[in-house]
């Protein structure tokens, strides 16, 4: 084979490989979605959400929902919102610090710490939350128990490293000329970050937020040890036990006695997917609105 032929073959092989990898990914996603819809779509309906309770009574909290996923949906939504409220500002600020202000040395040390944190298995984070409660009970608050707030704090810790890293990478990835522009126009480092760098890196930061939200919505191991229960109704306060969609999927699947009950798990999974999809759209809209405001 001549050199030119070899080059052509290598080129064709690379194209074929990349193409099939992309197609395989798309196919896998379609297969999962298709299977979820095939098994779960039939269960979608008011009864899946509210059981025998009238939907209006459930939404207003007049009557508890016994065998619907309403409480789990509310629990997961509150959990995601709470943990993101805690983690997103801190994570983005941390990323900004590492990218704009930190010295080279601190950046590499802290960066290693962030990577280490990202590698912590979620069950360990759950265990951390659980042992925190044990310590609190013995030392300060004898009535402390696992609850929604504790779970949200642990989830926030879990997703924090993703936010830090994606923000830092989005900012560091900006072209050098753009990073020098603000200073050359007499901007302070903060003015440069606020008015030039962050708007330019908005989409990169958004991808980190989406990743973090998805992780917060799906994680089961952390909440398992920090306050989730199978039947809790709507949480009345941050100190209350709560239900969550991923945990509901887990116990529906683990303890099903008939195919119909298993289908409920698929239906719940479909709802979880729609919930995260809706949250992504919300994050996307917020980012777009901010971008428009920045541009004009």
């Amino acid at each position, binding site marked *: 084979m001549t050199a030119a032929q070899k080059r052509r073959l290598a080129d064709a092989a690379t194209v074929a490989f990349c193409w099939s990898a992309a197609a395989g990914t798309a196919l896998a996603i379609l297969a999962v979605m298709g299977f979820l819809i095939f098994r779960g779509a039939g269960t979608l309906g008011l009864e899946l959400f509210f059981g025998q309770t009238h939907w209006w009574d459930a939404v207003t909290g007049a009557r508890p929902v016994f065998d619907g996923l309403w409480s789990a949906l509310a629990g997961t939504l509150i959990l995601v919102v709470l943990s993101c409220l805690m983690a997103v500002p801190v994570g983005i600020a941390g990323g900004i610090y590492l990218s704009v202000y930190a*010295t*080279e040395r601190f950046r590499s040390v802290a960066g290693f710490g962030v990577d280490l944190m990202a590698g912590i298995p979620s069950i360990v984070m759950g265990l951390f939350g659980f042992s925190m409660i044990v310590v609190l009970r013995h030392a300060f608050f004898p009535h402390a128990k696992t609850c929604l707030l504790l779970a949200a704090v642990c989830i926030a810790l879990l997703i924090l490293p993703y936010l830090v890293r994606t923000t830092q990478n989005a900012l560091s990835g900006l072209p050098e*000329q*753009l*990073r*020098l*522009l603000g*200073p*050359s*126009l*007499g*901007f*302070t480092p903060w*003015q440069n970050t606020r*008015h*030039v760098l962050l*708007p*330019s890196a908005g989409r990169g930061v958004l991808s980190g937020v989406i990743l973090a939200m998805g992780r917060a919505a799906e994680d089961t191991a952390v909440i398992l040890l920090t306050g989730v229960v199978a039947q809790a109704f709507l949480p009345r306060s941050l100190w209350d036990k709560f239900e969550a969609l991923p945990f509901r999927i887990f116990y529906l699947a683990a303890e099903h006695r008939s195919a119909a009950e298993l289908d409920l798990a698929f239906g719940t999974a479909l709802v979880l997917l729609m919930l995260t999809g809706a949250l992504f759209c919300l994050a996307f809209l917020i980012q777009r609105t901010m971008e428009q405001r*920045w*541009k*004009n």
Partner: protein
Amino acid sequence: MTLPESILEMRDVTVRFDEKIVLDRINLRLGRGELVMVVGPSGSGKTTLLRAVNRLNEEYPGSATHGLVRVRLQDSWLNCYAENFPLTDLRLRVGMVFQHPNVLPFSIRKNLTLPLRVALGMGKREAEQRVRRALEDVWLWDEVKDRLRDSALTLSGGQQQRLCLARVLALDPAILLLDEPTASLDFKATRKIEALFQTLKARYAILAVTHSLSQMRRLADRVLILRGGQLVSQLSREEFQNQASCLEIMEEFF
């Protein structure tokens, strides 16, 4: 030849990046209304020389500058590297245009008003007036006055570079630093920007870097030749206008 009153002076300026000497004992002066061009091969330290004036080298880790850089503003000499000289003020008075058009992905108007409002804390109305004046200064007003809300990225390369220049002029600097400002532009856009600099040099002291010898001959009042971080020669207009001697000198130094 009588030199105009100085507005910028560098004395024995040495710049290091992590112990590597990039600029070696540079001495230069720039007068009011003068356009001085620095030429030299790639890697000779041209960009670093410009950035030593507005202290942009400090945006990189490991940079160290020694020697004296001073600018004359409001009839008093100010040491650029003095502790009490605020960096942001220096950079407002010493404007810089980069090699590639460096517009922000915002509207044309916001590209100009953002620095005015953020760095100068200017009110909305005053900023609008400055925008118009700056755009007129770079002959862009007529081209963009009906589309100030459009993204600056919709402008052509030459227009973008003139917008960048307008953004700097709006801040009312005393000195302009131009880092190969026509390097990424086509022939026509280059000629337009060169003509613009001809008119601007009456009002500003300009220190420019170029690797185009023809541009140097068209624009410069004086030329400094930089090689390996050292200023190796200085040419007056008469010297580099003479084609034969110019070629000879360039052969020697490049």
